[in-house]
């Protein structure tokens, strides 16, 4: 990496930062007992249900788990295509 590379080591994450990020991700899933695979299934069904009522941008749908303190949240972000309702 060399002298100059080491000076800019900041750009490479430390193993501590990697550990913290991995922990936060794994704990969010552990706590709610929803693996990333299950969330994908959930997302597919959610898209199917919402699409019955309104046209949405399926590719833009985001479903994820987050947390603040020990409170977990499942959030779904669904882009709705303007002016086109099914009902």
């Amino acid at each position, binding site marked *: 990496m060399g002298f100059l590379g080491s000076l800019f080591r900041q750009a490479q994450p430390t193993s501590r930062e990697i*550990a*913290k990020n991995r*922990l936060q991700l794994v704990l969010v899933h552990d706590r709610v007992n929803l693996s990333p695979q299950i969330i994908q299934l959930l997302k597919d069904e959610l898209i199917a249900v919402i699409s019955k009522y309104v046209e949405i941008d399926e590719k833009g749908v985001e479903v994820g788990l987050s947390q603040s303190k020990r409170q977990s949240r499942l959030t779904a972000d669904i882009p709705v295509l303007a002016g086109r309702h099914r009902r």
Partner: protein
Amino acid sequence: MGATVITITSGKGGVGKTTAVANLSTALALSGKRVVAIDADIGLRNLDVVMGLENRIVYDLVHVVEGACRLRQALIKDKRVETLYLIPAAQSRDKNAVRPQDMIDVCDQLRPDFDFVLIDSPAGIEQGFKNAIAPADQVCIITTPEVSSVRDADRVVGLVEASEKGPPRLIINRLRARMIERGDMLDTADVIDVLAVDLLGIVPEDEAIIISTNRGVPAVMEDGSRAGEAFRHIAARLMGQAIPFMTIQERPAPSLFGRIARLWRSA
């Protein structure tokens, strides 16, 4: 008023539960409190050997539970520390020899005569863990600053909250200043951030712990070790005193000068 019953647990094995119970109960007793330490790790007893009391065992917790002896007979009085007692685990039985109600009954019998009962939980989240937390007024969780033990600690936090024992408190054990400085170890703030529980104390990695276990003399009984000092602080906090947390290592400012200086030193 009766004793405060505190269970030390962790989920992960080998993070320092037994060391903590040995040192905290000794430190509390050295401060004049009447303390009983109970080894709830039936079948894999270790608290006796860490406390240096392994030659004094006649009766153990299972004898008490099964009525083979009176509670008084199983209490080993530490000859070096006036008000400190131990109830050892059985070595030749397993966790199914005791039920949660048995632990509650034993602790209820101890409450009038003591100030603190400290229970050394086994690792895991099965029967032994359930037995150990059943009688607790407070649960204290120990973790090390490593991914696997923090993950297990998180599971235990959830189980403790679900069992209505009140919010557990955290001890972070075996912190290594140099690794934290290099960015190779999670620091106190990281662990608290991730687990979101109250911090009871932190303990640095210290060779003195191995030496103290070799000798059967808990580190708090002698001066000169940082781990011993840390455990004494935690004991003081358990007694209600407000002691500031030890400095393991501050997060260094990522200045260019700092990085040049580090390169210079490592050349």
